């Protein structure tokens, strides 16, 4: 592996640690605003946390693609200059974004809360990454396995949704508030789908490498599930804006398309026995263990997401911590687990010292249990608000939040477990990456 990719892995892992630290602080600022508002208010900590989380996932995903694509396209076909330029601009802009948050300079878009001028260097760096990927892609053989399709789709659609996310700067898009919100969430929703394509592609690639079975990434069944995922990326974002009095066909399309995800769910249930057999075979491999964890969290989160995608149920869950449970359940349980699997594979974690491996083994379980408590307590918080506000019609915000906060105290404690476990894993991986860089010099 190239050194600059290893350094990019280190930068991504630092973002993971930042996510965890800011997340825990944000949860305290939420619970004790009287104290935190004087020093580090929630309106600063949340952007720090959410942006670090997003950049952790996207940077990590790009590290995986940059490295694994060489295996698919051939090592001679690579453009190191573009990749180095991408990493430099990308990480440089992220640092500038954090500096803006520290100075309370905001742009106020959900997830992209920094001043919009910084979208420009992000755009340029994404184009550099795409250049480094698509140049060898054009030269590569036809009939590539499905994971290559998924990486390409993810890179392309991230670009499209990123551009769409910035359309609000053209006045026409702000002439109607409904239009503004609809398009903002069309872009955000599909953007999640785009990075998921990169990550699910990576997970499929790793599964092929671990099992040695190329067939799972070829043929029409694999293509069918890819197309189903792509349709959801394109059309299911409407579940973010069900309660908007916009045109009904947007809601209808989204409801219909979201329900096709039951097919994924049923396939998971059917494939359960095979998963168990594989588990017995590969359970000693660290990259595989993270993949199993990600499958487990797909199962739980997909069930919750499918329920939240029914408008009649969304009426209770929308605008509550159900959404937060889903958002963090997926980004930690699915996205982060796949990234750690990819990083374990790239850094050769299976070959490190037994002592370090043992630490990872223990922290892995602390992480899964903490996430379980974290997830259920956020759902409880969502349930309390949904019940009190939508079912009982309680409009006294402070009264509702007094109950919600009890559940959030539990999630904050579980969040500390996540910080310790994922933080320790990140530190072990950073050490491994740095040792590899030093050894090669």
């Amino acid at each position, binding site marked *: 592996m190239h050194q600059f990719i290893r350094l990019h892995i280190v930068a991504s892992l630092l973002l993971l640690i930042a996510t965890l630290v800011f997340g825990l602080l944000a949860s305290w600022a939420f619970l004790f*605003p009287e104290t935190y508002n004087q020093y580090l208010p929630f309106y600063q900590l949340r952007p720090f946390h959410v942006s670090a989380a997003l950049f952790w996932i996207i940077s990590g995903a790009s590290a995986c693609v940059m490295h694994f694509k060489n295996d698919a396209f051939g090592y001679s076909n690579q453009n190191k200059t573009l990749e180095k330029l991408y990493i430099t601009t990308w990480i440089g802009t992220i640092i500038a974004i954090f500096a803006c948050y520290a100075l309370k300079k*905001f742009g*106020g878009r959900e997830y992209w809360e920094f001043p919009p001028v910084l979208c420009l260097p992000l755009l340029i760096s994404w184009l550099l990454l795409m250049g480094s990927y698509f140049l060898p892609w054009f030269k590569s053989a036809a009939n590539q396995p499905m994971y290559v399709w998924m990486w390409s789709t993810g890179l392309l659609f991230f670009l499209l949704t990123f551009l769409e996310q910035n359309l609000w700067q053209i006045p026409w898009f702000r002439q109607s508030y409904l239009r503004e919100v*609809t398009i903002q969430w*069309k872009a955000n929703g599909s953007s999640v789908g785009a990075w998921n394509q990169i990550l699910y592609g990576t997970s499929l690639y790793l599964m092929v490498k671990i099992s040695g079975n190329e067939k799972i990434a070829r043929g029409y069944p694999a293509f069918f599930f890819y197309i189903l995922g792509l349709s959801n990326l394109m059309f299911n974002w409407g579940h973010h804006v069900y*309660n908007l*009095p916009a045109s009904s066909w947007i809601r209808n399309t989204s409801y219909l398309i979201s329900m096709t995800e039951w097919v994924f769910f049923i396939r998971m249930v059917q494939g359960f026995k095979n998963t168990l057999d594989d588990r017995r075979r590969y359970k000693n491999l660290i990259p595989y263990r993270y993949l199993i964890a990600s499958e487990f969290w797909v199962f739980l989160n997909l069930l919750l997401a499918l329920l939240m995608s029914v*408008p009649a149920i969304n*009426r209770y869950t929308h605008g509550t*911590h159900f959404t937060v449970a889903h958002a963090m359940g997926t980004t930690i349980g699915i996205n982060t687990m796949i990234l750690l699997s990819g990083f374990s594979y790239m850094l050769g974690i299976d070959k490190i010292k037994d002592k370090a491996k043992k630490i990872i083994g223990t922290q892995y379980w602390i992480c899964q249990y903490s996430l379980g408590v974290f997830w259920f307590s956020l759902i409880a918080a969502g349930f309390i608000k949904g019940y009190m506000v939508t079912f009982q019609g309680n409009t006294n915000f402070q009264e509702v939040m007094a109950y919600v906060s009890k559940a959030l105290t539990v999630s904050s404690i579980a969040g500390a477990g996540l910080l310790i476990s994922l933080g320790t894993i990140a530190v072990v991986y950073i050490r491994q990456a740095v040792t590899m860089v030093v050894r090669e010099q």
Partner: protein
Amino acid sequence: MKVLVWTSLFIIFSIYTYLVYSQCDQKDTTTTQPNAAARAGFNTWQQKNCQTCHQLYGLGGYMGPDLTNIASDPVKNEAYIRAFITTGTAKMPNFHLQDAEINNIIAFLRWVDKSGRNIVPKEKVTLSGNYNLDH
């Protein structure tokens, strides 16, 4: 074959995107455009990052209440909103805004309020689990 399926899907997506942009708001948008104050208020709303604590249409952070229809709240009048923004509270920080900025934010919230209701009434839920929000 695979490329054909992909291209067809992409074309459908492009048409769909065009329709979403042009038709998502069913109202006559020439009469519902924001005035200068509301536009300025929208910018202040973003620069002060209000959405990280407050939701509009249920979207945003969860620390503070949803403000979609605060401007037409039967109990909370304009003086109430103004007092909150001017001094902050134990839980909400004081952003030290100028009077003009506060007026603009209120104009922005009025404009948002006119775009529709945040809460979907129970009667609008249909048997298929969908909403019927058509007039």
